[in-house]
């Protein structure tokens, strides 16, 4: 792939002007994190410092999700651990942009980047058992639910399970009809 640009959106670096919107995502209990409620009092500066500190390390990335018309609709991140072997991804988009295919295309772009350009063997994501949108999206993309940690999240006054979903390298290529050319086989 030549860039992280799809039909609907592109992934790009975050800019100072993005943090007002990122802060609103962080401060909305429906969009802030995968299994944990955070106090909805983050300022744009706090988010900026947090993301810059966390993602300045190697083998990590954070991107703004921008429509082709130039509208920021969310952000996406990943980290590799170990590098070129396993990656964990996460994303958040504004509620007004749900159901438009932005999250799906964002994930597809980062998956292609991780599998094709970084060569990782497995991509993982974490969510909670009540997050049907994320679970549905992950399944559509080809993720399997590989682990269910019981009652390990608290949301809406109730315990929920935490799910770890993953997709192996060969599952990604096969499900998309792509040829896997690294030939790394250690089964």
């Amino acid at each position: 792939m030549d860039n992280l640009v799809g039909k609907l959106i592109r992934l790009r670096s975050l800019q100072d002007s993005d943090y007002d919107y990122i802060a609103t995502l962080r401060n909305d209990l429906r969009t802030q994190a995968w299994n944990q409620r955070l106090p909805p009092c983050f300022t744009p500066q706090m988010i900026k410092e947090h993301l810059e500190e966390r993602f300045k390390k190697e083998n990590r990335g954070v991107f703004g999700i921008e429509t082709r018309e130039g509208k920021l609709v969310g952000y996406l991140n990943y980290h590799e651990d170990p590098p070129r072997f396993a990656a964990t991804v996460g994303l958040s988009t504004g509620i007004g942009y749900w159901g438009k295919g932005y999250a799906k295309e964002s994930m597809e772009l980062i998956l292609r980047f991780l599998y094709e350009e970084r060569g990782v063997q497995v991509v993982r994501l974490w969510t909670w058992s009540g997050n049907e949108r994320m679970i549905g999206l992950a399944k559509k993309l080809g993720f399997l639910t590989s682990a269910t940690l019981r009652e390990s999240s608290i949301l809406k006054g109730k315990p929920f399970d935490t799910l770890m979903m993953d997709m192996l390298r060969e599952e990604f290529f096969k499900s998309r009809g792509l040829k896997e050319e690294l030939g790394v086989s250690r089964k």
Partner: protein
Amino acid sequence: MRVRGLSSDKIEIRSIEEQQLERIHKYQNGELRQELSEFLEYNFPWAPMSINQIKAKIDEFLKEERNLLFGIWSKENEFIGLAYYIASWDTWSPFFSVIIWPEYRRKGYGSEATRLILEAAFNQSIGHAVSVLVPEWNLAGIAFLESQDFKRAGTQRRTGIIDGKFYDGFFFDILRDEYLSRHSRGVDP
């Protein structure tokens, strides 16, 4: 057996200090290279680490305020292993791990360290669900967790590479109610 903080009639769990690094280094450079590398989240489990590398890894781990690292001592004051406790993501659902040096295994020390840590998680703090990730090749660890009433929670596919093959990790978890029920059954003294 009455729990007194992180101490029982059998073991004591204390902080790790510089004096323990040499022993950890010896095992990481020897028969526990793979296990200790996993424990220290070192990306090159085939490679021997220097004392300074081990110290740097520990310091990095402890930068997170809610990551805890302990040494385990026998009542005879022998340094017999390590334990970590990770609540940095969520104090409600921490992870932990215990490693006992080979010559001290099969003496009940791992079981006792696990009991003390679960006691701290469930009865001295707000822990509700405690999880462990164990590599599939650690058969003794898997058998041990099952014997302690941990439930298999799933698989982390492709956790690492060993002997030319990918290996998976298995998640296990235990809930506070299950831990308390185990006590009420008299499984633990």
